[in-house]
Every structure is written in C-alpha cells, then in structure tokens.
C-alpha cells in the first residue's frame, strides 16, 4: 500500500542524505520526496511517498524515528489529510489543437506560465488523480517535457495526528 509520511527534521546539511540513505540502504523505494523549510527556519518538513506492507512501513517509520535529526514522524495515510502536487507541462500542439489545449488547461484550472509560437507551458496543481487525469488528456496534444514536484501533504484541522 502507498503511504504518505510527513517528517519534521532539523534543517542541517546532510539530513536529506541521511533520510534518503535510510531508504536506499534497506532497499525501500521512495516514490516522491519534497522538502522545504517550515515557519521555524531551523526545522524542515519532508513529505515522502513510499510503498510497502504494514511490516515495511512499521520499519520505515521506526527507522526514521531513530535518525538523530528527525524530530517527528507522522504517517498521514490513514488520517484525513490534504495533499497537492504541482506539474509544469510543456505542450507542442498542432495549430488546430491549440484551442483545445487551452480548454483542457482551463478545465484543470491550469495556468499558462509560458508560451511560444510552438509551445504552451502549463502549471497545474492538485491531488494525484487530478494530475494524472490532466496528463492523460494533454498527452494527445503532444507533451514535449514534464516536471513534477512530488507530493506535499498536511493533516486536516481538527484531526488528531497519529504520531509514529
């Protein structure tokens, strides 16, 4: 099963490598990882998406907790949470598809962030399903390049966080 794990860590050099090394050293796969500073510049928050059965996830969360720089580990999967991802997608539509491309972008509340005579670059944010759907609809228009941020996630307010 896919799990979204939120990780509060000390904002020090080498921390990302410790976390990533923990996964690679044990043969666990990271599907996506995003990281950034929190309100406290000494602390960063990582959102990691990974796969595994209960036993593997238990090991992952325990091992993460064991890292000296990790302050808190929360598995968001089984609690109500909001998650978002952003993509930048560069489309090279044929002249007759240009209007359709813009229409699809609008459906997904995408924004055109760059355009050239032959391309549109569209920014779309949303949960995984929305992103996947947008990519599928835009694929026939001719995708030249695509970049994804990886997921960021946060628990919904009023929900007690389950600390691991």
């Amino acid at each position: 099963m896919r799990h979204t794990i939120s990780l509060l860590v000390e904002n020090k050099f080498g921390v990302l490598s410790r976390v990533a090394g923990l996964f690679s050293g044990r043969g666990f796969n990271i599907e996506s990882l995003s990281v950034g500073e929190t309100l406290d510049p000494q602390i960063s928050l990582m959102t990691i998406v990974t796969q595994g059965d209960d036993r593997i996830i238990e090991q992952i969360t325990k091992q993460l907790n064991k890292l000296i720089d990790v302050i808190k580990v929360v598995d968001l999967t089984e609690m109500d949470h909001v998650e978002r991802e952003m993509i930048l997608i560069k489309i090279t539509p044929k002249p007759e598809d240009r209007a359709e491309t813009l229409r699809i972008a609008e459906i997904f509340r995408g924004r055109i962030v760059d355009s050239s005579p032959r391309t549109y670059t569209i920014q779309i944010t949303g949960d995984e399903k929305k992103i996947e759907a947008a990519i599928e609809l835009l694929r026939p228009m001719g995708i030249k390049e695509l970049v994804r941020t990886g997921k960021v996630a946060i628990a919904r307010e009023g929900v007690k966080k389950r600390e691991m």
Partner: protein
Amino acid sequence: MKLTGAEIFIECLKKEKVDTIFGYPGGVVLNIFDLLYDDKDLRVILTRHEQGATHAADGYARASGKPGVVLVTSGPGATNTVTGIANAFMDSIPVIIFSGQVPTKLIGNDAFQEADIVGISRPCTKYNYLVKDIRDIASIIKEAFHIATSGRPGPVLVDLPKDVTAGKSEFIYPEEINIRSYNPTYAGNRWQIKQAAVAIAKARKPVIYAGGGVILSNASEELIWLAEHTQIPVAMTLMGLGGFPGDDSLSLGMLGMHGSYYANMAIHNSDLIIAIGARFDDRVTGRVEGFAPDAKIIHIDIDPTSIRKNVRVDIPIVGDVKLVLKDLNEILKDEVKEQWSEIRKAWLKQIDEWKRERPLTYAWDEDIIKPQFVIEKIYELTKGDAIITTEVGQNQMWTAQFYKFHKPRTLLSSGGLGTMGYGFPAAIGAQIAFPDKLVIDIAGDGSIQMNIQELATAVIHKLKIKVAILNNQYLGMVRQWQELFFRERYSYSYLHTEQVPDFVKVAEAYGAVGLRAKKPSEVEPVIKEALRIKNTVFMDFFVDWREKVFPMVPAGGAIHEMIFGEETKQPEKKLKAVK
C-alpha cells in the same frame, strides 16, 4: 581566554575523562598531534594501520565499558577506519572517531588527501559531524560522546578540518546538551512488563535468549537473578556470551547456526522466548518461518527498530535491559523459587536429556592437534579468568563453543560484521584498558594475517597478549562450506602451506616471542610457556585442517535442523566430551 581548535579538542577529551587515544598522525591533524607530544594525561597508542586503531578502540570499549577514541588523518587515514567503524556499528559499540579533514575552503575540491568521510561513514555511524566553525567544536564533541554512549550505543565520527583546529576561539564546554530529536527510552512500559511477568508465570517451556544488550547495559546480575529465580534456561548469542555464566547448569551456551544442539532444541520446542537485548539475527533464527513455532515471544530492547524486524513479537518492551529486568524481577520476586523449580522440572529434565544426547564433542586424535582441544586447554589453564578476543571464522565458533565465559566483557568478538583481523587489535585495546589482565586472541592463520602488522604496536607498548593461531592453512569456514555445499571445490580457500608465513619467525621479527606445537602433547607446554612469558606471544598450533564446526544449521534450515560431524554421529568412536 582564546584557545586554538586543537587545544579545545584536547580540553574536551579531558572533560570527557578520556585518557587513551588510538591513532595515526598525518598532515592535517598535526596541530593536534603536536600538542599530544607534551601532554601528560592523554596517552596515544600509535597503531600500524588505522583499521587497527579503530578495532583497538572498539576492543578497549568492549572490555572497559568506556568509549574508545580514535584520531586519524584525512583521506586514506579516514577511509582506513571504515571497516572498524562498521564493525563497531553492527555490534553497538561506543567509539568516537576523530578524522582530520582538509581546510574548509578546499572541501569538495578534490584536494590532496581529501575524502568525504562524513558521506562515506554515514550508513555505518550512529551519527557524524563535519565541524565547519571553530565555535562549534566543544558542543559537537560533547554531543558526540553523548550520542555514542547513550541509548543503543554506537560509533560517532567527527570530521575536523585543518583550519578549524588551527583557528582560535573561546573555550566553553557546555554543561548540558539538549538534542530535541534524540530522547532514547530507558524505562520499559509498566503494563507490558506486567504482561511479561504473567507470560513467564504461565509458561511451561520457557527459554531466555540473551544477546549483547545484556552486556552493553551491564545487566548480567539482573539476568542471573531472573534465570535462577524462575528456573529458566539461558541460551546466548555470540555477543551475549559471558552475560550469563557459561558453567551454570541453566546455561545452554550459544544458540544459532553453530549453537549447541540443546540450545537450538530448547528454543525450537519452547512455549515462551524471553529475548533480552538480542536482535534475532539470521545466524540465530535460521529459517525465520520455522523459528520456534509454538513460542510466544517477549522482546526487550532499547532500540524499537530491533523489535518485530525479523520475527513476530507478542510482548514488545522498549527500554534499557537493566532497568526493564529490574522492574520485571521486582514483580516476580514475590513468587517462591521452589514453586518455579517444580513447574520447570519436566522441561529442565528434557533439556538435560538433550545435553546428554548430543554434547559438544570432537573426535580425539593422538597425532594431530584438534583445534577444539587447544581452546579447551586454554580454558583449563586460565580457569576462564582471561579476556578472550577472536578473529572470525572457525576459530571464533570453536571459541564460542568450547570456552566457557563466566563474566561479561570477557569475550570480544566481531558479531554482526564478522570482521577478519578484528581480534588482534581488539586484544591490544583490551590489554591497554586492563594491563594486568590476561588477554588472549584466538585466531586463524587467515585472519591473523589481516592485521598482523599490529605486532609492532603490541611489542612497543610491552603488551603481554597471547595469540593462539589455529593454523590449518585454509580459510577454514570457507573450506567447510565448500566441502559441505560446493562438492569439495576448494576455490581460493587454500592459503598454500609454503605461503603461510612462519609465524614464529614473524613474531621474532617484531620483537615478540613465537612458539609452536605440532602434536597434541605439545599443546599444554606451549600454552604454559606462553602464559609465563611477559611479552606478546604467537602460539602457532598446527591443527587438523579437515576439522569442521558442528553442529551446523545449513543456510535455509530451521534452527532445529542441524547437521552433525561424523564424530557425533558415531558414538562408538573415541569421543572426548567437554567437561
């Protein structure tokens, strides 16, 4: 007053009550070594290789319970410590490694003797640091000692760039440190401990499975009390040997791949396993699916990641073994010991039968020295009053089987990593910690050659280490596997008789003493002579090269699916049982 980084470093070590450093100098750590030249309180043990220094610090830590300290230069000096660091990491040994680093402005520029040791050592240290600012030296060193010695201990590396040790700053040693993300759990959950006590009371066929955690947390007394009071037999891992007296009637010796028949049978047939500071290593469990099918498992460990990593656990207790056992014993103390004896009678009788059925034995030979006989004789002549280190392989397993360890911290052996070349430098560390104790390294001819250069270290410091080399001209354990599972194709395990050095001459070349025994009758006189000599001694025992370690659980087998040597299959042959 402002001090240089090197001076601050030395002051910090003194604050941590360090009196011995194992190390090797080099360009970027000369600021520190220059100060050590005149220092009366810090003794530097110059080894001949940085791996030797790290194993020596590890041996020092295991024997004394104090952290071991290593100081090496950058680049190759630092990378040479990696095997020693990984060794200490696998066995949870508190070692602090200080490595020199090129000046901060050169880091990342492929400077001469630069290596990213922080990156290299990350997966095999408990934590590591690169000191980028001289003002951080003191607090980092304080943290390094704290992290290495608390919770589940382990090695911590501190990388010190040359300009940091050369610069000047105020010296303020922090009284306290607070690492918000690091708070090991020491006290076990009361309710879980109560559950454990209930399970122990209910069990009819319980076994204690004690590991290195018992020794690391100095919980031997509590373990002995628990076992004696509740009459539960104790099987130990390699790392746990000495945690419970090997000559006690409740001792089952070592369990696992080369464990005793009775330890493995007891574990397999048990209805309750009380795992204490042990981590269900694959060498212990054999095939996990077949491990102790009817047993409930209580698992006490300070490291939550050890629990449920390999086997299912019914009652997990996270905490320091000593504290948890104290609490558990407190609950159990009201039960009357005699009642336990009655309840356990049938189970202990069954175990005695297993002990009689297949004791640890070997076939005696009048003409060829059996390696087990050498270990037996060492035990007999030292009366078990020695610190024994081992190398890795057959010598290690025979030592675990045939030497009865009475006390904790008397067996120093590379358990998790299985590092050939560990025993001799570890013996140096142990002898430095305890100059008056008898320290013996039991080695193979393959292993001893991995760090044989440390003879110089031993001799120059007038250490009286005795090295018993079980010389069979083979990488014995590799040969054993090839014989049993690779149709006797001894691919590169034969060291060639003419290429195994004359260990007597090697010893003499370094200023040590070399002795040799070729016949069983010469074994005892050689050991006695070695014990008499006040110098480092190599004892070269020409042993039977065909000898194998039995019992053995073949890879993929369950713990009770052992294979035995001919000598134990054919009782009509002349057997020599271990006393």
